[in-house]
């Protein structure tokens, strides 16, 4: 049973999600219960996976018992276990929020939600590039439907852009896969990592083209600078629980970059070593600058949070560009923090908008809030953490990233990252003071936050404090994860057997330099 645990984060939501799609006539309460129970189970499975991965060995699950490199494998290491736990936690709380009523504004919310989680978990676990494409498609098609869920003009328009862009992205993904398969003759990431070390130099150019094309695709998912235009509109238009779940979608892009580039284009890859890292560094810094301007120009709380997501994407991409163990470790810490906190902020903004009548989420003078103290407090914690102020989790994440920069990198990174924090702070305090304090005389009205929504919102935003309290163990974990990533040899050994790991690595690197 225990060895089948790896496949459960994919199979469980698939079965329950498909069942929920079939049984549309059942009562909402039953559907909510089934969905929440399934997601609580997924969190439990994810915790078990994290415990399993904690011993540092790399386990794989060969689907249909077709052994690698020929069959499709799911691989469990520290990174994938962490990401699965993160997505399951975020999914559970976002879904809990949706049970307060948003799930009934359209049909099939829970089924789609579970299928999207299946796609996300699959993307985190798979060890096969084409399978990664398939899981991307699964999570995308579920996200198209979820983005449109409930329906409105803004949603249709943003969904149209989102769908067309992502279809283009899928086309590029396939072209990249075709090139990589044509050059290496395999789609298994581990096998490709071995083959790339002994690649005929004449074909390195093709491999480079394929690898960089893949970077474009992942960059589109992660909202890297020239490819981010879909993000603010889509996130601002989506319903709150969907936007909260989307907070991890950009991180799927970041994860894919981290996985593919730290496994395949390593120091052993000769001329292809560290492919694309420069691009990531500069694109990350540029994303940070644009996100800064976006945060300052936001006239709506939802857009503001969407740009806060972009600030985090810019920060993560720059950290990816640094490509050291310390930077990867800091990046993972920041990734966990930013996913949970921005997810919580999307939920909070929805509650706030529900108590402000016509003004909604727009940053204008309006009636006072019903629960101004509670919501204002949560907003303060959430935005201060997102802006990177101590004593909240964002500060630790940012400090780790700042500390891991080399002196040449510091010249660029320090001013930009700190300025981004300042801009977020200015924008959030302006927004917060006009929403919570600059109120008219009207009677407060609207919907109270309630238990389910309170637990979901509070739970996600409390990550800002919990991640500080448990910063020590968590930082140790992310450091161990980054170390595991930096040394792909055990990964290759466990999948392909002892003789597969490239022992020719040092001489090859010597030849090139």
């Amino acid at each position: 049973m225990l060895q089948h645990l790896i496949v459960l984060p994919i199979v469980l939501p698939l079965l329950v999600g498909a069942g929920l799609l079939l049984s549309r006539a059942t009562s909402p309460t039953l559907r909510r219960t089934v969905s929440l129970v399934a997601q609580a189970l997924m969190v439990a499975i994810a915790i078990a996976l994290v415990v399993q991965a904690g011993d540092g060995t790399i386990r794989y699950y060969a689907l249909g018992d077709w052994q690698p490199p020929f069959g499709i494998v799911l691989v469990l290491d520290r990174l994938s276990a962490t990401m699965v736990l993160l997505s399951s936690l975020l999914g559970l709380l976002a879904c809990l929020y949706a049970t307060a009523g948003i799930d009934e504004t359209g049909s099939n919310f829970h089924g789609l939600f579970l299928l999207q989680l299946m796609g996300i978990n699959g993307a985190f676990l798979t060890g096969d590039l084409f399978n990664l494409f398939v899981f991307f498609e699964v999570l995308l098609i579920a996200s198209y439907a979820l983005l449109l869920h409930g329906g409105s003009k803004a949603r249709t328009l943003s969904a149209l852009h989102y769908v067309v862009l992502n279809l283009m992205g899928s086309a590029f993904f396939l072209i990249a896969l075709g090139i990589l398969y044509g050059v290496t003759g395999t789609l298994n990431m581990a096998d490709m990592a071995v083959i790339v070390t002994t690649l005929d130099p004449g074909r390195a150019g093709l491999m480079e083209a394929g690898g960089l094309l893949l970077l474009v695709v992942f960059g589109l998912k992660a909202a890297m600078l020239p490819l981010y235009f879909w993000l603010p509109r889509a996130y601002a238009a989506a319903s709150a629980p969907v936007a909260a779940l989307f907070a991890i979608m950009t991180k799927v892009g970041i994860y894919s970059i981290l996985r593919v580039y730290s496994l395949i284009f390593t120091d052993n890859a000769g001329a292809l070593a560290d492919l694309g890292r420069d691009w990531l560094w500069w694109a990350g810094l540029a994303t940070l600058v644009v996100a800064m301007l976006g945060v300052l120009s936001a006239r709506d709380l939802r857009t503001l949070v969407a740009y806060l997501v972009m600030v985090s994407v810019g920060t993560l991409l720059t950290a990816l560009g640094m490509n050291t163990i310390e930077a990867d470790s800091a990046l993972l810490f920041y990734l966990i923090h930013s996913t949970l906190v921005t997810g919580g902020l999307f939920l909070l903004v929805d509650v706030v908008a529900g108590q402000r009548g016509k003004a909604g989420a727009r940053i204008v003078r309006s009636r006072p809030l019903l629960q101004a103290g509670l919501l204002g407090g949560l907003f303060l914690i959430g935005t201060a953490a997102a802006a990177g102020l101590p004593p909240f989790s964002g500060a630790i994440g940012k400090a780790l990233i700042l500390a891991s920069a080399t002196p040449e990198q510091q010249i660029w990174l320090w001013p930009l990252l700190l300025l981004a924090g300042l801009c977020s702070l200015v924008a959030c305090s302006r927004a917060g003071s006009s929403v919570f304090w600059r109120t008219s005389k009207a009677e407060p009205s609207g919907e109270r936050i309630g238990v389910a929504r309170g637990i979901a919102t509070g739970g996600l935003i409390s990550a800002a404090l919990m991640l500080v309290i448990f910063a020590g163990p968590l930082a140790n974990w992310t450091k161990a994860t980054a170390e595991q990533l930096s040394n792909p040899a055990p990964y290759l050994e466990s999948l392909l057997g002892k003789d597969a790991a490239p022992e020719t690595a040092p001489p090859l690197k010597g030849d090139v330099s």
Partner: protein
Amino acid sequence: MEALYATTTGLLAACGVYLTLRGRTFPVVVGLTLLSYAVNLFLFSMGGLAMHGNPAVVGAGSPAADPLPQALVLTAIVIGFAMTAFVVILAMRARGDLGSDHVNGNRLDDSKEKEDTK
């Protein structure tokens, strides 16, 4: 054979990209379809173009075309088909919701319309 194949793929991709960049939803959808044809052809050729080969049978021992790209193309076609159906419905819904078939939801006024058709 190779030249013809490459030209066809390239032409399809070029037309697909051009149409996808148009302002109205219908050409965009057609462009995406053409692009997915080009991608499928490209993917298909990745195992190398082999003419007059035998079916790939385990143990047959005779030269055969690489079967994996064929399986990949099959998956890509199925996914592409579903996506095309979805984007067509979405485009129709956008036409209904936004009252315009422009990708930005803008209504083009008449003078602009005439310029476009010129």
